[in-house]
């Protein structure tokens, strides 16, 4: 064993003056939410520098989208942020509809809004469960996944698949919602808030959790804006910026909801913001359930066999508010049936680039707390 210590000292060059070691939190690690590698320079337990290395899940969805038709690219968008796939589809579909000058019937827009909010709740539930796991609490994981199971069953009923939907079409949605799914949604919405209270109290009343997340991983508002960070992280740093209120799309200006904001910018603030967002999403779903008009759910001009032959010109970028931040797809069409350039603005990419600023000077035990509070999903970061 003395031999091992000697080896370590010689290899890593740890001597009395230079105490900085470089540790690799490698791509396989139980607490990075996917394949993330962070090269951390440590001085004892204090982090001096943390550089994320990404690219382990790079499938180049942008190039793949350039090789098929417009509706085919919807599938690649699904697989970006796979825990909230409908938000990804929404961003793409809104842009392409602008390019093709498509009119979407009202019923389809209301359906889209309701399902996107349900997906937001599902995404935040995954975040909550895995965040508890990172903090050492094994129990909230199961409670969150039990709730998410109910949402996945609703999606299964509506679109036929639990996780990757391919449900939003250019020009509407592919199938109507059935009365059975409406009753499932009503059931879910009725008692979700009680369950959320229960889960929130596990975290908020735990003194250990609060001590570990207060004043940890602080990001100031100026830094957030400079790094391009949006979503719950920006709102927890003090800036009240939510695309659903500031630049509304779909029918968000016709429903009432609040935008939670906190001032501190630490991990606990982000936790509170996300919990409150879940409550507001439930409020939106309740209002939309009453307001869905009857009518067509699909613009017949864009029916499937014709869709592959439709041409699009111009360029457009419609930003939407996904659970992680501002998501949008910038599409350049050159007049043919194949997109010329598809560029995906993924929020987790920008959020993750602020990790060095968030971690400098904190301890190594704060690394997992901070990275999990950003909630990166690597399908989105690496595309």
């Amino acid at each position, binding site marked *: *064993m003395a*031999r*091992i*210590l000697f*080896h*370590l000292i010689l290899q890593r060059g740890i001597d009395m003056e230079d105490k900085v070691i470089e*540790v*690799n939190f490698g791509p396989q*690690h*139980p*607490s990075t939410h996917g394949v993330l590698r962070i090269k951390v320079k440590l001085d004892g*337990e204090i982090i001096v520098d943390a550089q994320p290395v990404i690219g382990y899940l790079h499938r180049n969805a942008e190039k793949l989208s350039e090789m098929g038709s417009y509706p085919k690219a919807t599938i690649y968008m699904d697989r970006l942020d796979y825990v909230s796939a409908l938000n990804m589809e929404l961003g793409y579909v809104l842009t392409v509809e602008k390019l093709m000058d498509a009119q979407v019937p009202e019923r389809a827009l209301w359906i889209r809004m309701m399902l996107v909010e349900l997906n937001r709740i599902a995404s935040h539930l995954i975040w909550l469960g895995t965040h*508890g*796991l*990172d*903090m*050492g*609490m*094994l*129990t909230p*994981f*199961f*409670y969150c996944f*039990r709730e998410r199971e109910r949402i996945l069953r609703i999606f299964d009923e509506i679109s036929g698949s639990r996780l990757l939907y391919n449900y939003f079409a250019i020009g509407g949605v592919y199938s109507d919602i059935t009365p059975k799914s409406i009753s499932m949604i009503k059931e879910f919405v009725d008692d979700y808030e009680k369950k959320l209270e229960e889960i929130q109290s*596990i975290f908020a009343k*735990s003194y*250990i*959790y609060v*001590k*570990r997340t207060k004043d940890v991983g602080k990001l100031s508002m100026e830094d957030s804006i400079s790094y391009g960070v949006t979503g719950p992280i920006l709102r927890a740093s003090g800036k009240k910026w939510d695309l659903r209120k500031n630049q509304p799309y779909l029918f968000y200006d016709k429903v009432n909801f609040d935008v939670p904001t906190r001032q501190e910018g630490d991990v606990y603030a982000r936790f509170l913001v996300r919990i409150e967002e879940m409550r507001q999403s439930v409020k939106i779903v309740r209002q939309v359930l009453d307001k869905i008009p009857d009518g067509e759910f699909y613009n017949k001009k864009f029916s499937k066999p014709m869709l592959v032959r439709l041409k699009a010109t111009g360029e457009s970028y419609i930003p939407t508010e996904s659970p992680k931040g501002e998501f949008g797809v910038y599409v350049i069409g050159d007049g043919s049936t194949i997109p010329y350039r598809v560029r995906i603005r993924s929020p987790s990419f920008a959020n993750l680039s602020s990790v060095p600023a968030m971690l400098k000077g904190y*301890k*190594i*035990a*704060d*690394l*997992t707390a901070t990275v999990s509070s950003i909630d990166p999903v690597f399908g989105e970061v690496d595309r």
Partner: protein
Amino acid sequence: MNLFFFLMSILYGILKFLHINFVPFVYDGYPIGLWIAYAIVAVVEVVLVFALSMIAVVIIVYVFRKYMADVQNRIGPNRVGIWGTLQLIADVFKLIQKQDLIPSNADSFGFKIAPYIVFTPVAIGFILIPFGNVSILNLMVTNFNYTVLFLIGVMIVAPLGEIIGGLSSNNKFSLYGALRSAAQDMGYEVPMIISLVSVIILAGSYSADGIVYAQRHIPFIVPEFIGFIVFFLAMIAKQSVPPFDLPESGSELVSGFSTEYSGMRYGIFYMANFGFMALASFVIAVLYLGGWEGPIFPGTIWLVIKGAVFIMIFLLTWVSLGRVRVDQFLNMGWKYLLPLSIINLLISSGLALYLGGVF
């Protein structure tokens, strides 16, 4: 009179009856036959207690899995055996048949010996606990005058095994786990020993038996409530159970010091973990709750009940609380536990002086 001497004298009687007493040979004043009886009874009793502790571990693991599953709203193991009782045996079979991997640049001697260093205190500790008395017979394996001191000395060795295991695996995560184990050890060892010393002062005896005897009027939890809290927290820390499971932080450092361990070596760490939980609850029951004293039922059942209460309390904290950070833990250890244990020491010394020989 001790069960040990009782059994020994019976065995000597049997040997004499069979004319195997070697009377002409005398060693240290006793005939050889007596020494043979001594050796045989010693081995049998130790093996019995060890087996009992293993049974305790099996029961605790089963209860833990079912209880954790219930808290998390699912059913635990329920396929192997009736209601899943044989699950641990199935796991042991699985672990035994795994390939024994030792990392290439690891120090193989340290790597191999570390699990045993962690496990041995558990085995030894059970020998020192008094299990009750049946009329004049004390049910304990040994009864020399310093059992509690010996117990502390033995329990201190356990974190050393974790450190050796972590350092011998050639892996930075294990290194961090080992360093955290050392840090955690520093945080709670001193308050634990000080609160133990206050119990000894009040009881007036270093042996576990004497401490139980001293609690026959009132269990020590009443005069030494602060010491009880300190000792309880220190025991949670010593077993590496959440909220204080820093050396083996499951999601932060892969698996801490036991990252490179697989197969039965890991199985020994696992059993040592739960065995220590049993040992710690029995120790707390003996020191603070009065051991096997109690009305109506025989003493052993009372000790088991008190131990079981503490085991359930440990399991409850395991499933519900998160993990503290290293510096917060050391903060707690040095800034709060240590002064509290010293205050407790002063209180108990004052009580012992004032009340004279009541206990």
